[in-house]
């Protein structure tokens, strides 16, 4: 499969602290790829580096084009959307305004796969509470709006940082059901998750990251293999 995103020798530092030592990964068109690891492993920094939100060294190629030194707004306009950890909605703006801003990075001339109706069917809360300030929604509802906002740019690659963090089991199911529909639409997903088992079951491949380095690439989806990976790298059964 043709590589949509290719990351090689990625290194991210914050002053003297090294957040990412060496990350190599690739995401094919329409694939769902997991990036799992414990707290502080460098997962979020990897996503931020891909978006150009933090300075990094190494190579990040998207559709064969280098993203080196591009600002996040330019990366977004190339077809990468991010749902950051903590949702980062615009809290005093209405749900509708948040979604409207999501359309900003749409690429002119590109045939749209996602429109308002599709989003309303995927996440009914975005329609039901469209006039409500986004900051007044519950955590699960906010996560749905955050994903919807990212999707409205009609991206080719969706970066998701801990989409299930702090959500109730019902809300987690809603989010993963939606991710399945997004993937079915042909949108590639790079999913950062601490719920390792859930992520590995959803994704075609998963990278296990620890202490800033990719330690393992997991393709198997059998219960035994997933449990073994989780026990080895997370020290528990997730």
């Amino acid at each position, binding site marked *: 499969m043709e590589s949509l995103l290719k990351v090689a020798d990625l290194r991210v530092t914050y002053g003297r602290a090294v957040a990412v030592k060496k990350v190599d990964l690739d995401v094919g068109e329409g694939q769902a790829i997991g990036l799992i690891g414990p707290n502080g492993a460098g997962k979020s920094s990897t996503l931020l580096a891909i*978006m150009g*939100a933090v300075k990094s060294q190494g190579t990040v190629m998207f559709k064969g084009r280098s993203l080196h030194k591009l*600002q*996040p*707004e330019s990366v*977004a*306009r190339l077809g990468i*959307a*991010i749902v*950051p950890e903590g949702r*980062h*909605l*615009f*809290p*005093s*703006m209405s749900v509708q*305004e948040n979604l*409207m*801003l*999501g359309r*900003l*990075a749409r690429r002119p001339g590109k045939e749209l796969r996602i429109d308002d109706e599709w989003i309303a069917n995927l996440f009914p809360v975005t329609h039901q509470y469209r006039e*409500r*300030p986004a900051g*007044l*929604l*519950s*955590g*699960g*509802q906010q996560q749905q709006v955050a994903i919807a*906002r*990212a999707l409205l*740019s009609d991206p080719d690659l969706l970066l998701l940082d801990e989409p299930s963090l702090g*959500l*109730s089991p*019902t*809300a987690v199911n809603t989010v993963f059901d939606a991710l399945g529909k997004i993937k079915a639409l042909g949108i590639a997903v790079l999913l950062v998750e601490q719920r390792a088992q859930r992520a590995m079951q959803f994704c075609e491949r998963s990278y296990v990251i620890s202490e800033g380095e990719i330690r393992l690439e997991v393709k198997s989806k059998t219960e035994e293999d997933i449990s073994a990976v989780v026990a080895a790298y997370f020290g528990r059964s997730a």
Partner: protein
Amino acid sequence: MKIRIRLVYELGGPLLLIALVALVGSMMSIAQQANVINILVTATIVIGLYVFIGNSGVMSFGQISFVAVAAFAAGILTSPVAIRSTTMPQLFHFLAVTKISNLESLLLGALLGAVFALLTGLVLMRLSGLAAGIATFAVLEITYDVITYWNKIGPGARTLALVPVSTGLSVSAIGCGIAVLAAFLYQHTRSCRLLRASREDISAARGIGVSVFRQRLVAFTLSGAIAGFGGALFVHELGSIQSSQVYIDLTFTTLAMLVVGGSGSLWGATVGGIGFGIVDVFLRNAENGVALGSLHLSIPSGTSTIILGAFMVAVLILLPRGVTGSRECLERFSMKRFSKAVRLDDQDVPRKP
């Protein structure tokens, strides 16, 4: 329909307040009217500050530079040509011989403010936080020094006198209304929505494709235009001007007005500009003795500044979003309805057993 009513309140509230102040002012003596005019002109400048600071969330100490440049340009170019060669002998030739009307000077003030803001913004709008605040303060310092010491562009450290006075009660009220209208129209543009998104969460805004630099530059330029317009109104209100009048005191007074009123809304800027101005005038009058019915109030000289400072601190502690809560006129009621609705159907908030 609901949105239309909200828009009517959002624009109508500030305009009604301005009209009310002008109406009350028209019933006062000429001496007291001067205070009302000054309040309305200052409110115009505060609205100029709001357009950038309120919508971007970036503190700027430099907006009074645009007021200063516009005030001196408007003052010089409307003053009698005959006296310029004696009061300002070193003026550039075109400044020494060009004469424009007061109305033209208002437009020129807005244009100069906008151009000056655009040029400085090209450099400054790449900065954020403390760096942006310090850099805009540097612009204020540089502007003040240039106006005070460069005799080719003005009277230098001396007073620019004999500027024709034309900012009366109606002109100041109309001018303030124009500033409100401009700020209102701007805050409903796509550009302002993008800027507000960056104010709420800059990383998220950039992540969805917002060019924060470009949107800040647009707001900074418009803010410069309104501040420049206010500067031209200011010089035609006073009839004379010195560089010290458009420097640190005015910077901090107008910023305090914006913060006390509520920097996040047009209503807050208008209420802050007018309300803080009324309190300021009252306290300054009280220093000279003022009658309140049968009571005679007199406070020691300098007390007004102390009281205003204490008032500002109290507001910042008790109402950190300003006396209006940074909400638009009558917005409070719709927000209450929303928060009640959320408490009823929020599924992820743990409920008490």
